[in-house]
């Protein structure tokens, strides 16, 4: 009954994608923090994500915990391979996470926590991009463990994907702020979002062209059925999303740029999925090989089927409660 492991691959992919788009925009807000002018704008930007960042980051724990639960071998191989980027990402997330509370608790050190918020968001995004790039390059497995060295993750390609994710998250953040604010801050973000959108599309192009060179297998998947269908559809879909993004920005729409930026991320994610499938850790480890026994998969799946829809429901409710433009006066501090 190998299907369970594929259902789980889908669940994990969903969790990671949810993490990327949700924490993506709130990390992006952190990356754009230096563009806030004055305390009022800083407060507006931070309050736009203060009630939800914690829930967004929980999807990261779900991704890590889920991988441990259902693909323990993949977890055991990937974590040592990406040792440095993962540790640096975790440390960066600590800095930005505490900044949400700390910056309201001090006067003299406020600037310190503002810098922590910015740098933490930036480094976390960069490390996630590096981790992605290193995964695409492939991870050396010997027996049931990581077989490479502790600097293998570092390459021109992984640095490139690092920058790509930073720019992409900043785009998500900018379009989120456009959605949640008005006035001068919104206008400034509209200007920035235009450049970030151009940058994101540029990075998507470069990374897409370079990816097949990381592993010849990727070439085959894109050139043969069923992947070749996507080879035709993907550029068209990316083009439509990009058009919607620029049109929304030019027309001064509130929500359209954010949704278009999100769909760009979804498309990129699907693209990575096509490159990887049926591997979970390229080039050697497949989804079926890495899966835990069916008893584990089934036990965890029962809870997932019941609880994930509930989680999505109350997460959506929480977003609904805090809908509309942010009022910087509102807070509890």
């Amino acid at each position, binding site marked *: 009954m190998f299907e369970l492991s594929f259902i789980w691959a889908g669940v994990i992919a969903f969790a990671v994608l949810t993490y990327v788009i949700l924490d993506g925009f709130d990390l992006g807000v952190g990356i754009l923090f230096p563009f806030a002018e004055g305390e009022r704008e800083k407060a507006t930007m931070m309050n736009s994500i203060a*009630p*939800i960042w*914690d*829930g967004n980051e929980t999807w990261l724990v779900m991704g890590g915990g889920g991988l441990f639960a259902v693909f323990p071998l993949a*977890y055991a191989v990937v974590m040592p391979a990406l040792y440095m980027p993962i540790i640096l990402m975790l440390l960066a997330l600590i*800095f930005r996470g505490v900044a949400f509370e700390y910056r309201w608790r001090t006067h003299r050190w406020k600037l310190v926590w503002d810098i922590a918020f910015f740098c933490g968001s930036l480094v976390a995004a960069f490390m996630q991009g590096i981790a992605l790039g290193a995964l695409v390059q492939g991870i050396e497995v010997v027996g049931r463990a990581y077989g490479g060295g502790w600097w293998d993750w570092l390459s021109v390609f992984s640095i490139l994907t690092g920058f790509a994710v930073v720019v992409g998250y900043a785009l998500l953040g900018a379009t989120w702020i456009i959605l949640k604010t008005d006035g001068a801050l919104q206008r400034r973000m509209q200007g920035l979002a235009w450049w970030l959108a151009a940058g994101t599309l540029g990075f998507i192009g470069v990374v897409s062209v370079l990816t097949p060179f990381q592993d010849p297998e990727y070439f085959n998947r894109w050139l043969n059925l069923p992947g070749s269908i996507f080879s035709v559809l993907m550029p068209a879909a990316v083009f439509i999303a990009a058009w919607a993004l620029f049109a929304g920005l030019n027309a001064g729409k509130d929500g359209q740029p954010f949704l278009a930026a999100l769909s760009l991320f979804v498309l990129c994610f699907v693209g990575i999925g096509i490159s990887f499938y049926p591997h979970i850790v390229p080039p050697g480890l497949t989804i079926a090989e890495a899966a835990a*026994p069916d008893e584990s998969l089934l036990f965890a799946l029962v809870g997932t089927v019941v609880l994930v829809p509930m989680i999505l429901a109350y997460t959506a409710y929480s977003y609904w*409660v805090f809908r509309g433009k942010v009022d910087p006066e509102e807070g*509890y501090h």
Partner: protein
Amino acid sequence: MFDGMTAETLARMQFAFTVSFHIIFPAFSIGVASYLAVLNGLWLRTRDQIYLTLFNYWKKIFAVAFGMGVVSGIVMSYQFGTNWAIFADKTGPILGPLMAYEVLSAFFLEAGFLGIMLFGRKRVGDKLHMFATAMVAFGTLMSATWILSVNSWMQTPVGYGINEVGQFVPEDWWQIVFNPSFPYRLVHMVLAAYLTTALVVGGVGGLHLLRDRADAAARRMFSMAMWMLILVAPLQIAAGDFHGINTLEHQPAKVMAMEGHYESHPDGAPLILFGIPNPEEKRIDYAIQIPKLSSLILKHDLNAPLDGLDTIADEDEPPVTIVFWSFRVMVVLGFAMLGLGAWSLLRRVRGRLYQDRWLHRAAIVMGPMGFVAVLAGWITTEVGRQPFTVYGLLRTSDSLAPVAAPAVAASLLAFIMVYFFIFGAGTFYLLRMMNKPAATPHLGLKDGPIRTAGITPILQTDSEAIPGK
């Protein structure tokens, strides 16, 4: 700094360091979350302003502590993979799903409703706000339940098989979740979290009573904390005793180390109150002991035989000195908590609860002792199960990831620096908030334009939120 250490030693130091830092925050936030739910419930029921004042006060303290718990917890969920990958591969099929349930049933619940609890009373109304507050408290308890099930399975593994590649695989989930040491550990830890919170609340109440014994909010929190102490401390001592007897059954070597029993005692073992463990000579130097009492406590029979560490192979022996001391620290603090609770009860009966300044001072001294006891307790149980990660089945030395010592050393150093910096600052802010009376409208910035023009808290500018207005 870490020259010459093996990757294993460094990885163990790193885990001990990060998990010790992490446990401090849940130990507090589990209790405060429940306290907040009680305060909010009492406020809605009685409309007594003092409860709302206290709710708003502890809510802000909770938010800072919870934030620190979240970020230090994310580190834990990845560390199994980065440093202990072999352990992760072997135990993943059993422990992974339990942790997935923790994430699904606890972390999302806490995170999803925390925003509403902190920011949303005005937006959702009192009833839904109460629901959100209760969900946060429930989430912290669910989290404790699952993670203690995970830990307990590692201590008392049951319901598993071993497959052809050497992984532990589940055979009976019911047995795995409700493994033999789980109920005891869960009760002991949740009570510890409640005691820790009661001590902190009592310490803060005591501080403000020393300054102003008419402070109504300080009186209320001090009184609630002291009730909690006198009710829970005896329960905790009893729970600890049951937990110890359970440990004797499943992990006798741990109890031998706790008791300092290097030798077997065929006709009644003494209770060693104090002494200096001497691991080289395998004896306790300068022991002050009460004959046969250990057998009475553990076996409920003065003459019951108790085996000592002489029956355990040297390579399976836990580090006695650490366990011996950490256990004593925990027990002494447990009785000190009981003593403080009893003292407060005496004063309460005489109607002097808010007047006895020495009681308030003692409460301040005891304020942080819950954390010390929790750490001492965890050190006892975690060091006491060495040299195994899965007790009796998987050795710590066989659990390590293929990581290079310099990588672990560098990350350990980074964790130490970042944690002391970040959590040092957080502790400073927490103490500064606690240093202000509960009725203070602004616990944040002392002055400056922000307070008046920027982040003016809606809740505290409500007339209903400020007692007496």
